[in-house]
């Protein structure tokens, strides 16, 4: 074992306010060698961030830290004043979860990065030159222009790259990465992780990688430490711990992670439901709900660019796409919360008013919605019973409040609690119960689990599947996470820049051939299929460099080009046609519908399975 660069022994952290309770971190001991990445994993509140910040001396003043922290010979806990500042300047770097708030909004990016060099004593010209080089090294497009921009003018990915540039500028001995990619789009996340991997080998620093996602642990870390309420449960090499977890808490964590490669069909815990693949009422001629040629823009930004689709009765349709692809807007148009500039919504045969307030009580009762953020989906001043009672009364539901509570597995005594006192998961359960209180025909779920803890996400998804199955309600499940969508949906629609680029039954969409964008989504979410292109060449869809082309935020600034909106990012684009001619919609075998110029016809597509 090489000499540890970072040695932590008996680390205890206690917040003055919570003094009577257990300390936030209760005696943690571990070592990290130079060039080695240690993953800190655990549920939120387990103290993984507190440990990292305690080591980097970045805790609020009311936290008291004890125990020894030794970084390459310096006793970090003893540092103070100018010594601490010099240590921060030379040896430590931290990359945060929220890149937007980690950058000073009123200062240009170039100056903020150059400040690190100035602190090192370089003069302005040298600092600026090094800054441009640094921005280039984090593959920032056109570094000189980016340097002059303000943080709010950059995309999420670009902001995180700037933060990383600042962190790596001083070749730190200790690098802390606190959930660096949570909240970023899958494709952007992919780019950041690859950047970290590439730069990691050039540095010889001890790296702490904090995350709640075992996927990332597997991909990014050498060793991993599993934490539970401030204590170290297990520690060891990644493949050992994940392959054969010694403590049952680790095993529990691993199980409840979202079944990456499963669909509801083959999920063991759902065996009691005899889920047929095809919904009972095969394909009735009149779908439950259809949307015809809906278009909508917010100022210059095109949210929906002429979308037509339908949802069958009792069918679960997944709607997946990056942020800004218009998927949420489509959901809101269906529920009537957003009135589109153009287009019609039909419930069964009848066209219903675009604005929910002008719809009849009957059509309102049919379409309900589950919102994304648990904290604002329920009125904090109301009690659970009140919420469900009111929904049931207004929507004319038949089942009693207690039945509703039971159907979402809420304990009876929780009914009389204020909604504010519930946990995230419990709030979403109430929100789901409220949606089905009036026997709705369609429930639009807008990223219902993305704001929840990993462990809770799986249980909510299973709950949705059960409810959908028992009550034969159709779901429109909107999410940016393809694996969540593929787990749940009978049919998937992939959206990009306000249009549906590919739709079809789940297995057909998951299997090649794919619309190039779908391929990129699949690669980003770890499915790693080797995609053989039409002309036989293997485009390792997952090959890092292929997808590292700069992912501009879809739709945000893309002008409605006459041709295919995915043109700039499409690795398989046909020069001359794709950017000028709008791609046709082609119906292929197995119910697959694709909007693309590429010839998908040759029948041999299906052999090359994942």
């Amino acid at each position, binding site marked *: 074992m090489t000499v540890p660069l970072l040695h932590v022994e008996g680390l205890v952290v206690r*917040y*003055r*306010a*919570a003094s009577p309770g257990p300390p936030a971190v209760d005696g943690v001991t571990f070592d990290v060698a130079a060039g080695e990445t240690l993953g800190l994993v655990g549920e939120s509140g387990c103290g993984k961030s507190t440990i990292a910040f305690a080591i980097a*001396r*970045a*805790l*609020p*003043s*009311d*936290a008291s830290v004890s125990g020894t922290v030794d970084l390459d010979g310096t006793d970090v806990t003893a540092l*103070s*004043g100018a010594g601490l500042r010099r240590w921060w300047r030379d040896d430590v770097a931290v990359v945060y979860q929220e890149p937007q708030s980690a950058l000073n909004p009123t200062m240009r990016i170039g100056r903020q990065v150059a400040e690190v060099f100035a602190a090192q004593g370089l003069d302005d010209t040298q600092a600026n030159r090094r800054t441009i080089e640094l921005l280039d090294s984090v593959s920032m497009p056109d570094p000189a222009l980016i340097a002059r921009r303000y943080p709010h003018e950059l995309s999420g990915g670009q902001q995180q790259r700037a933060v990383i540039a600042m962190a790596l500028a001083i070749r730190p001995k200790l690098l802390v990465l606190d959930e660096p990619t949570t909240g970023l789009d899958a494709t952007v996340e992919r780019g950041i992780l690859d950047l970290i991997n590439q730069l990691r080998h050039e540095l010889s620093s001890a790296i702490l990688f904090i995350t709640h996602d075992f996927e990332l642990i597997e991909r990014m870390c050498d060793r991993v430490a599993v934490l539970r309420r401030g204590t170290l449960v297990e520690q060891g090499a990644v493949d050992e711990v994940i392959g054969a977890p010694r403590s049952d808490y680790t095993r529990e964590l691993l199980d409840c992670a979202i079944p990456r490669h499963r669909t509801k069909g083959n999920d063991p815990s759902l065996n009691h439901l005899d889920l047929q693949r095809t919904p009972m009422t095969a394909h009735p001629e009149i779908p439950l709900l259809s949307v015809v040629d809906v278009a909508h823009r917010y100022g210059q930004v095109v949210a929906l660019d002429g979308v037509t689709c339908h949802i069958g009765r009792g069918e679960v349709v997944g709607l997946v796409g990056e942020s800004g692809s218009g998927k949420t807007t489509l959901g809101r148009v269906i*529920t*009537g*919360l957003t009135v589109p500039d153009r287009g019609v919504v039909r419930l069964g045969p009848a066209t219903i008013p675009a604005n*929910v*307030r002008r*719809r009849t*009580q009957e059509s*309102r009762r049919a*379409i*309900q*919605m589950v*919102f*994304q*953020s648990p904290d*604002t*989906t*329920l*009125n*904090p*001043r*109301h009690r659970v019973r009140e919420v469900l009672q*009111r*929904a049931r009364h*207004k*929507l004319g539901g038949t089942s009693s409040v207690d039945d509703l509570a039971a159907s979402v597995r809420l304990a009876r005594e929780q009914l009389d609690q204020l909604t504010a006192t519930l946990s995230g998961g419990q709030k979403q359960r109430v*929100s789901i119960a*409220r949606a089905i209180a*009036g026997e709705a025909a369609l429930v639009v779920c807008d990223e219902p689990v993305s704001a929840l803890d990993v462990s809770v996400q799986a249980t909510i998804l299973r709950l949705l599947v059960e409810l959908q199955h028992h009550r034969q309600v159709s779901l429109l499940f909107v999410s940016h996470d393809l694996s969540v969508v593929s787990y749940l949906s009978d049919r998937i629609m992939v959206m990009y820049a306000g249009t549906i680029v590919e739709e079809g039954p789940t297995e057909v969409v998951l299997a090649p051939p794919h619309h190039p964008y779908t391929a990129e989504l699949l690669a980003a979410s770890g499915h790693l299929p080797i995609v053989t292109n039409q002309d036989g060449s293997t485009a390792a869809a997952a090959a890092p460099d292929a997808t590292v082309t700069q992912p501009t935020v879809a739709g945000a600034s893309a002008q409605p080009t006459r041709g295919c909106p995915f043109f700039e990012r499409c690795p398989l684009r046909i020069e001359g046609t794709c950017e000028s001619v709008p791609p046709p919609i082609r119906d292929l075998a197995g119910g697959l519908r694709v909007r693309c110029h590429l010839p998908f016809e040759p029948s041999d597509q299906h052999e090359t399975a994942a």
Partner: protein
Amino acid sequence: MSLESALVGQDVAVASTSPVTRRRRRWTRPTLLGSSVVIVIWIAAAIRWEWIAPFGPSEAQSGGRFVGPGTEHLFGTDGFGRDVLSRVLAGSRPVLTVAPLAVLLATIGGTVLGLILGYFGGLVDGVAMRLLEAIAILPPLFPAILVVALLGSSDTVLILVLAFSFTPIVAWTVRAATLVEREKPFVEAAHLRGEGAGYILGREILPNIAGAVVVEATVRLADAVFALATLAFIGLGAQPGSPDWGAQVADNRVNLQNAWWTVLFPAGAVASLVIAVSLVADHIREWKAP
């Protein structure tokens, strides 16, 4: 004291203390205790100064005019030979009847107006905002001057005048809070259920902005007492002969050199009440929305 020395002197904490500790320490602060005691004293005086005051506030005393503070007259006597202590105690009643009622009226009016403007927006909001702006850019005491000139300066008129000038300010705050709440999912869920505007404003939005309204009310209370004293000073507020503090300061300010007690005690009373109410308002604001 240069900026440098002020800062370097103490190794500025990385981040300020976590919210939990800051809130608990606040309640035990001496300033809060002190100001609450002052307010209670003045309220007691306003309710029953007849029992506390040693003399009738408007009776000329045999002791004669401009008697300095002493054993017989704790605060001395004024130009009419009246006991200043009794007048100061009696002076609390007009202030503590008009100010709270005016603020109550302004808060109710302002909240309703704010809710409607915030919720409906569109043309109504545009026009109403222009009207509120029109009133706001008038010099603060201007509406008071006109209305008092119109209706004389009885207590009810003063309450109306203060309410009239505070309503726009309360409405502005409530409108801002409503604009935020209106976008929240639980309000959209209410729309999905087909709830009417009344229910949404009353049951969904109002409970959530009640905190902001309370904070606004306490701040306006301090302003109301301040404005009342100023109105009395320029001769618009108090009834003739009323022991209103502002009027006492105005009438006696010429005797400051030879009978300073006739001015400084009522002035002290005004300052003590306004400071106490401001301190309490400050605490409530930090406790409600840290």
